[in-house]
């Protein structure tokens, strides 16, 4: 399954591939940063969709075309649209109050995040195995399907149940309470 076919098309050259990766990574991080600093949830979601497009491309670069496609379809296409839909349904104020630079809130979070990041990076760099880059790898849909439905068949079933439960739970929670007598409809 891991015969190493070369990445077809334009991205066969390692040099170009790595440059594209760094570009995409930078774009992803920028989009994410913009996303998390937006006041308006709609804007945030749009930036996030952008970041997911970039991520999908990175997945494609890493030889995971199926995952890349699903990233687009499920994440950017379904989940984020769901977010948008909910935001619009609840009429969350688009502008409202501007994002205040609340130091009391952001600075501890910033420090905490940086420390965590620093520790993680330190750990990654210390690991000798992470220095290498290996050769290019491409998982064909056939390999992927075999692994998923053969080796992980049980897990697929469990996850499908999980989705069913989630659907039922979401229906139940979202149904709303039966209106009591004498209560004004809101």
């Amino acid at each position, binding site marked *: 399954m891991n015969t190493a076919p070369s990445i077809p098309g334009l991205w066969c050259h390692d040099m170009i591939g790595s440059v594209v990766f760094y570009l995409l990574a930078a774009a992803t991080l920028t989009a994410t940063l913009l996303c998390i600093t937006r006041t308006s949830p709609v804007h945030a979601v749009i930036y996030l969709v952008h970041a997911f497009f970039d991520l999908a491309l990175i997945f494609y670069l890493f030889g995971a075309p199926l995952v890349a496609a699903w990233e687009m379809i499920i994440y950017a296409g379904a989940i984020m649209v769901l977010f948008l839909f909910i935001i619009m349904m609840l009429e969350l104020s688009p502008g409202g109050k501007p994002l205040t630079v609340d130091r009391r809130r952001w600075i501890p979070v910033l420090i*905490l995040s940086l*420390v*965590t990041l620093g*520790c*993680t990076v*330190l*750990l990654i760099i*210390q690991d000798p195995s992470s220095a290498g880059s290996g050769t290019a790898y491409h998982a064909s849909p056939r390999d992927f399907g075999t692994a998923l439905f053969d080796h992980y068949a049980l897990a697929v079933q469990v996850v499908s149940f999980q989705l069913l439960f989630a659907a039922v739970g979401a229906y139940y929670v979202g149904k709303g309470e039966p209106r009591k007598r004498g209560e004004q409809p809101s």
Partner: protein
Amino acid sequence: MNQTLLFLIPLLPLACAVLNMLFGMRLPRLVAETLAVSGVAASFLLTLLFWGYADGAGTHALLGTWLPVGDITIPFALHFDALAAPMTLMVTGVATLIHLYAVGYMHDEEDYARFFGLLNLFVFAMLAIVLADNLLVLFLGWEGVGLCSYALIGFWYQKSENARAGTKAFLVTRVGDIFLAAALLWLFALTGTLEIAAINARAASFAPEVLTALTVLLLLGACGKSAQLPLMTWLADAMAGPTPVSALIHAATMVTAGVYLLCRLFPLVSLSPDGMAAIAVVGALTALYAATCALAQREIKRVLAYSTMSQVGYMFLAVGAGSVAGAMFHLLTHAFFKAALFMAAGCIIHLAGGENDILRMGGLFKRGPRELFWVFLAGALCLAGAPLTGGFFSKDGILLAVYTQGTPLFLALWGIGLLTALLTAVYTFRLVYLVFAGEPRGHGHPHDLPLLMRRPLWPLALLGLCGGLLNLPPLVGGHEWLTHRLGTLAGREILAGHSIEWALAGLATGLVILGWGFARWRYGQFRGEQENRASRFLLLGWRADALVDLLFVRPFTAMAGLCAIGCDRALVDATLDGLARQTTACGERLRGLTTGRVSTYLAGFVWGFLIILGWFLLALVK
């Protein structure tokens, strides 16, 4: 006949008691009452039937082994001898009459089964004391008597003062019981047995100091049950119980138990001259103390209670003077006339409509049934020691025995005895005059008197009057039947010239007449009674309760308070409370961490994550 049948004497009342206690309320009232009376009456008849067994050295009867421990066995055994037989006969006989009286007295009582059950149990316990062959069985009866007296004195426990009187009787006699138990244990350590005969036989081998100490311990034990100084405070309060109970306690059973104990162990006791002197002193002082108290009492039953104390003091004096026969003689006559007096007092209270105070009675001679007056008079004459009554002979015998001891101590005690005799005559006739003479002063509505309350008085009054025949001295042509019957158990032989005996009898007669004259002069016409300090002092029994309170109760309460507040609350509670408060404070402080906000928890999450990362880094550095 099988001698084991002797056990029926104590066991019949026990069986009736158990039956009454278990099923009494389900039986018809008549059956329950018949059961109670017949149980005691049957043991009375059995005692008569078995009278012959007491001849000579008496009869031993063994029911079974009680406590086999190692090589010691405590049997359930009876000893029916010349000392126990008259006592048994008196206890069962008087108790039978009192039971009959109680049927009449308690005919309105709802809780009759408990009453008759306890009454029967009381008789059983007393018979266990009387017939016991070893001291442990005697102690069993001793405690049983204490328990029953507690339950019966506090029979109407709904009134808290009655319950308190019962508790007081129980606790005070319990003090004596502890001394008796100590004496028992010591005797057991010395001889390895608790058989009375064996102990008496081996007493001569004890060291003199040990004998004296044992005698004092036994004396203190006897003091508790017999209400002698210094453990006498319970008896006057014991009047809170129903009248039949008072009669039973004062005449037939409980208070005589102490005298009987000393008589039983007389061979041991008599070996210690100091101990004997102590017994005599206690008896004489109690006799005088109680007589003075009786002079000022206002409640009819309390007068009689103090008179009982005083008469039991005479019995102790007799034992101390070495005359068991004199003590037993006085015990028997006293049982008869005191039972009659108590039961008559119950009738009087009934007639006066529940009035207890003799200052508010009077005029009963005119109004009430005459037979009551005659019975009460008979009892009073015996108590005062009027010539030719039973009380006269028995008291005279005691005074003679004390006089013939001859030592200065005993002569002084003899003087006290004479003074007490005078006081006895005074308070007895005071009682008679206040109750019967003059016009009615009370306002109570008389209850009617059932026949069952009147009839039992007659035999008792007659027995009291004729009780002298039991031990008529040779002086007036008798031949001292009781003394001969007791034989070797009778104690010291009293030798006195006829002239001395005549002189003493004359002196006693003079004292009675003097006392009567004084009472007639003072109380013949009711002139009211103003209270002064002296009479108040006597009314409160020389403030003995206050003294006990001051000497024992208050220090004990203070110590308990110290333990409770100083030790328990300040130390133990404070430590625990402090710990609890610290824990609570810690919890309060930690409570601030749980804000309920999701951000706080997430931050905690991240901190934990950071710690794990740090741990990895540390492992890496190493």
